């Protein structure tokens, strides 16, 4: 089993994974994250590599250090990550989709219709709220 793609810096993949866990609520605010050694043992990576991933998140203020205790999720980490992702959403996700639609000839109206349909189906599933 390969947990990490050998082809890009592993510490960056670690940072991305922790960010994803914070975004989807697996790691709530102020919870302690695994130590670098636990992380290294679990994913079979060099502890210095794991430490580098953690350091990147500390630099971005996603995690904070408590001396002698460990690393914790910053109180506003999730909000800030959501904001970052929202800022990139249209360029990263929508522009790509529009480009692909143009190449294969899907009319934009069809996409809009599809999204509206998916939205209302989702609302119905949630008990018709909103």
């Amino acid at each position, binding site marked *: 089993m390969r947990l990490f793609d050998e082809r890009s*810096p592993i510490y960056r993949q670690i940072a991305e994974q922790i960010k994803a866990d914070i975004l989807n609520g697996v790691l709530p605010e102020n919870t302690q994250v695994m130590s670098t*050694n636990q992380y290294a043992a679990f994913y*079979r*990576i*060099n502890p*210095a590599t794991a430490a580098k991933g953690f350091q990147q998140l500390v630099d971005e203020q996603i995690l904070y250090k408590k001396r002698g205790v460990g690393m914790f999720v910053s109180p506003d980490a999730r909000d800030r990550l959501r904001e970052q992702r929202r800022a990139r959403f249209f360029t990263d996700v929508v522009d790509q989709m529009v480009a692909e639609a143009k190449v294969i000839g899907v009319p934009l109206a069809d996409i809009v219709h599809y999204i509206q349909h998916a939205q209302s189906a989702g609302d119905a599933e949630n008990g018709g709220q909103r």
Partner: protein
Amino acid sequence: MSPGIEVHNLHLRYGKTTALRDLTFSLSGGKICGLLGRNGSGKTSLLSVLASLRPAPGGSVTIGGEAPFENPRVMPRVCFIPAAGKGASDSADSTRVRTALDLAAATRPRWDRDYAQHLLERFGLPLDKRLSSLSLGMRSALNVTIGLAARAPVTLFDESYLGMDAHARYAFYEELLDDYMATPRTIILSTHLIEEIGSLLEEVVIIDRGRLVLHEDAETLRSQGAVCTGPAEAVDDFTAGMTVLGEQRLGQTKATTVYGPLDDRERERAHAAGLELGPVALQDLFVHLTKELEGSR
């Protein structure tokens, strides 16, 4: 503090054959370093000088600041695990596994008997068997057991996985990492199976024909290479002036592997030119970097 290793202008010849040429690099202590090189590149020669199996004939080597050869302060702190099957005596050896372990226990000041026992069980090594009747994989497992349980501050594994099946190799990597974290030390792993151990390494030293090709932080190395794919002309424009490691063509499309850091501006330039930039695996980088010198072979 685990001892660091300094190699300065190291030169080694066997008769007319030059095994190591002007090798200079320095490893800080307490790291796992991968020593990568093709067959015959000088990996074993280098390790055997570090292990005091031979003196440094030209240039110098120090471990923890001292020359290791016949040095009673350094030698007990260095454990060299040669590749199984390389010693001529292996296949004729009537020693039993138990005796080999007793010998290691007696000569290794930091030997951990319980840990050795744990490893024996994990690798399924039979204590009563003679070394001559062990398979290559089992002999490797015994070597690995000795290398790990010796807990030497400097541990050198020379292609120690030979003949081990995937289960045994992964058990070795797992034990190595866990024990390294529990008891930090300076470890050198020589290999050409980079894909398997890449994530264990903090540093990488690549040698070829006895020369140093590079010494780099493993994570930095991983971000150094890129494969640039697109229309041949656009690729050539973009890669002009870069260190090109390899090129492939498929019709009008060209894929060029470059080595060196690419900043955001260059990535944007590639994107604007309709080129795709992909990462290069450590193994591929190694193959490219050591192939480059093929012309001089």
